[in-house]
């Protein structure tokens, strides 16, 4: 992971948590660049969803269209995957989605900080989803929730083996859930930074890395939205497992 080369490229520096108000010391309450970008994300979300649709237009304008598109995209997704009863959990899932989406998209701005590139953040979110879904599963189905691991449609002889696989895959969920998002965010930004470092060192030859940055940036635009979508749809799938454990 070390990038101490002659080009003096530090692709990972952009991920440093920096206490921007209280100096060098990082206490648990210090206001950091990460917290700042969470705040900016909050303001952006409010801008799009509250300011953008303040007129309650019947025929939406641009900002209201964006807000409605995102809102009903997630709403329909929950109905498709979980069913009508899943709408009870819509506020949580929607919060999760816009939190990740805005974090990812704002992270693409130059000099910004991508809070979703941190495993602490995505891990916390994924663990919250995991714990919530497990609790919902047991509350809604009692011990019937354990039938999620006992696949009754498989031949009896295979079921103990499948049980082991299912249990392992269940507990791996938060890990894959969080690392998928953080890894994608981190890798994309690091790659852009590496090419940017090349561009800085190459002088007139920088045209090639700049072209590459443009290409990767375009790809990243796609990836940030898809990763937010993937995180949310997996949350829905897990929730569906909790509500309907029988396969």
């Amino acid at each position: 992971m070390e990038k101490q080369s002659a080009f003096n490229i530090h692709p990972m520096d952009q991920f440093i948590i920096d206490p921007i108000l209280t100096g060098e010391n990082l206490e648990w309450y210090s206001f950091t660049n990460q917290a700042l970008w969470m705040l900016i994300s909050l303001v952006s979300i409010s801008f799009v969803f509250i300011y953008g649709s303040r007129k309650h237009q019947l025929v939406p304008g641009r900002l209201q269209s964006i807000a409605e598109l995102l809102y009903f995209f997630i709403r329909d997704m929950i109905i498709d995957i979980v069913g009508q009863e899943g709408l009870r959990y819509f506020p949580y899932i929607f919060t999760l989605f816009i939190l990740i989406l805005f974090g990812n998209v704002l992270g693409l701005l130059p000099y910004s900080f991508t809070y979703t590139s941190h495993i602490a953040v995505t891990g916390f979110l994924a663990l919250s989803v995991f714990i919530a879904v497990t609790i919902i599963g047991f509350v809604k189905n009692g011990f019937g929730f354990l039938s999620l691991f006992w696949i009754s449609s498989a031949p009896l002889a295979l079921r103990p083996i499948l049980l082991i696989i299912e249990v392992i895959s269940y507990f791996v969920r938060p890990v894959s859930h969080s690392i998928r998002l953080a890894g994608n965010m981190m890798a994309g930004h690091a790659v852009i930074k590496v090419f940017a470092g090349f561009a800085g060192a190459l002088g007139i030859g920088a045209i090639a890395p700049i072209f590459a940055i443009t290409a990767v940036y375009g790809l990243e635009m796609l990836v940030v939205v898809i990763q937010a979508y993937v995180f949310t749809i997996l949350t829905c799938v897990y929730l569906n497992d909790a509500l309907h454990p029988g396969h």
Partner: protein
Amino acid sequence: MASTSDNSVVGMPQLDFSTFPNQIFWLVVFCVVLFAIVKFFIIPRMEDIFVNRRKIIDGNIAKAEEIRLRVSEIEKLIEEELEKAKSQCDEIMNTSGKNIKEQMALALEDSKIATTQLINEAEGRLKELRDGSEAAIEKISEELASEIISKISRGK
């Protein structure tokens, strides 16, 4: 794992566990505030917009349905009227046809009677004429005969 003195990192800052409490603290604050915004501002607003739109669309659909019903009613009325007019027309045609036939039959009858009368009259007159002429011929022939006789007797 940790920041070096010149503010450049070795390895991933993501794995610097000393920053985790700070990150999670701010994330929890962020999540709670964002959830409140979603719950109390975004969802009511979006649902309001959605419900209003739904209402207007449903209203329009209901209105369209109403108009459609009225149109079908009117169509039925038109059909009924047409049916009525057709039957009336048929009736008129039937009765007038019958009338015409009757009148024609009457006229035919009249003309037949008239012609037979005429024929009879003509026949009568012919007979009269024939009878008259026979008598005249008899008379003339009698006169002629007597005259001839007188002439013959005188010539002797």
